[in-house]
């Protein structure tokens, strides 16, 4: 299918997804379930990668600060800026695109090939809205928290690494963390996080929803979903950065 056709299909798909839920209570319960599945279950991986990335960023910065004129607190400063600006939004977004994206695409795809989606339709349920709307809401709601968590854990990782290797002293590091903070950068990153959350849920849902065939195609759709949502995240990152930081 051509690229343009796919875009058109995706827009029509979203139109079906964003229609009024059948039952408010059921919708709400679905959202809670999805928050758990997409959000709480991702805390582990976000914490692990953030700690390590924070640690590596601080050590790299420390070992590159050979010029004695550059102050030590730059290490804390750089770690914080990297986490806030790019790492906790974009890299975490990419990692979640892999984890959450493949999960969603295969879940919805296997519902499609085992006719569970047809079963919903035949009951008179709008399957796209019932299955996918709650996922999008849940991710848009929970991912900003994951972002904040990632920033804090990343900085903590940097602090820990600096302390353990003796690269920088704790007071220097902490001074750097608080140095020259521009709150707008956080807003900028949170906006990115929201957009990424939308991509991570809607694109894999789209690929899963239109699977036809069997288990093999579900696997293929899941791969496509991850690759394409990752590309879209990078593209959105570029565009949003141009718009928001100009």
């Amino acid at each position, binding site marked *: 299918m051509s690229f343009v056709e796919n875009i058109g299909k995706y827009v029509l798909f979203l139109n079906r997804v964003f229609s009024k839920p*059948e*039952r408010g209570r*059921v919708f709400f319960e679905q959202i809670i379930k999805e928050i758990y599945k997409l959000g709480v279950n991702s805390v582990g991986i976000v914490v692990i990668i953030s700690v390590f990335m924070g640690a590596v960023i601080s050590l790299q910065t420390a070992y590159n600060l050979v010029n004695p004129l550059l102050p030590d607190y730059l290490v804390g400063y750089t770690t914080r800026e990297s986490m806030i600006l790019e790492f906790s939004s974009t890299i975490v977004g990419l990692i979640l695109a892999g984890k959450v994206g493949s999960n969603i695409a295969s879940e919805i795809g296997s519902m499609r090939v085992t006719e569970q989606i*047809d*079963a919903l339709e*035949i009951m*008179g349920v709008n399957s796209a809205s019932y299955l996918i709307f709650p996922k999008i809401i849940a991710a848009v709601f929970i991912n900003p928290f994951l972002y904040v968590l990632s920033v804090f854990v990343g900085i903590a990782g940097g602090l820990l690494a600096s302390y353990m290797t003796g690269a920088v002293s704790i007071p220097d590091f902490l001074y750097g963390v608080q140095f020259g903070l521009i709150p707008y950068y956080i807003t900028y990153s949170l906006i990115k996080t929201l957009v990424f959350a939308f991509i991570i849920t809607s694109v894999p849902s789209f690929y899963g929803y239109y699977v036809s065939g069997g288990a093999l195609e579900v696997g293929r759709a899941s791969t496509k979903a991850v690759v394409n949502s990752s590309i879209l995240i990078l593209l959105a990152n570029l565009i949003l950065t141009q718009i928001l930081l100009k």
Partner: protein
Amino acid sequence: MIELNNINKSFGDLDVLSDISIKFEAGKTNLIIGQSGSGKTVLLKSIIGLHDVDNGHIYYGDRDFTNMSFKERKLIRKEMGMVFQGGALFDSLTVEENVRFPLDMFSDMNEDDRRARVKFCLDRVDIKKAHKLYPAEISGGMQKRVAIARAIVLNPSYLFCDEPNSGLDPVTAIVIDKLIQEITKEYEMTTIINTHDMNSVMEIGEKILFINKGVKAWEGSSDEIFDTENQNLNNFVFASNLFKKIKKEL
């Protein structure tokens, strides 16, 4: 009552159904039979609107389903129950939750009534202990029965079953056939069943539509099927040695 008027359906260049007309009555088990690939599933899915037909009309009572808007279709779907060829139970929900699902979505019953209704339907299909299990944890025959329970939970006027007893042992197969027939009589439903199982045909074939390569080749009842002159139907019915033998002895 469901009536089909000159139904045609093709996928690209492939004509799957040509000019099918028939009337399925309420309170009867209506069977669609035919060889694998003859178009049974496509016909059933066209009747319920999962496929759009190319031309022709489908009437539910006197309502023309083919001309309905999306909204009208949604309404009429609340009167339909469908048992898919593979069961199509929701695998993230337990047996009980599967059967309960249509109630949670569409009924105004209170909690106690819902529970009672779910229990009633599961009892009806003889599922006694598996309420808390997931579809993956029960046998194929049980899945089919749970799917039937889910299909009837909202008291549908129209019940559709795509090969409800394929892959089951002869005893369970007949139990399921009989069950569907009983429910059909009990609630005066219009039931349409796809099958290529001659046992089902003999047990519950009150009205039978035989399709051959997408064309209606014969219609009648199980009493008439042995005497047919139709060559294609004869080949289908007397494919097995068992039925050849029966024919000789008759």
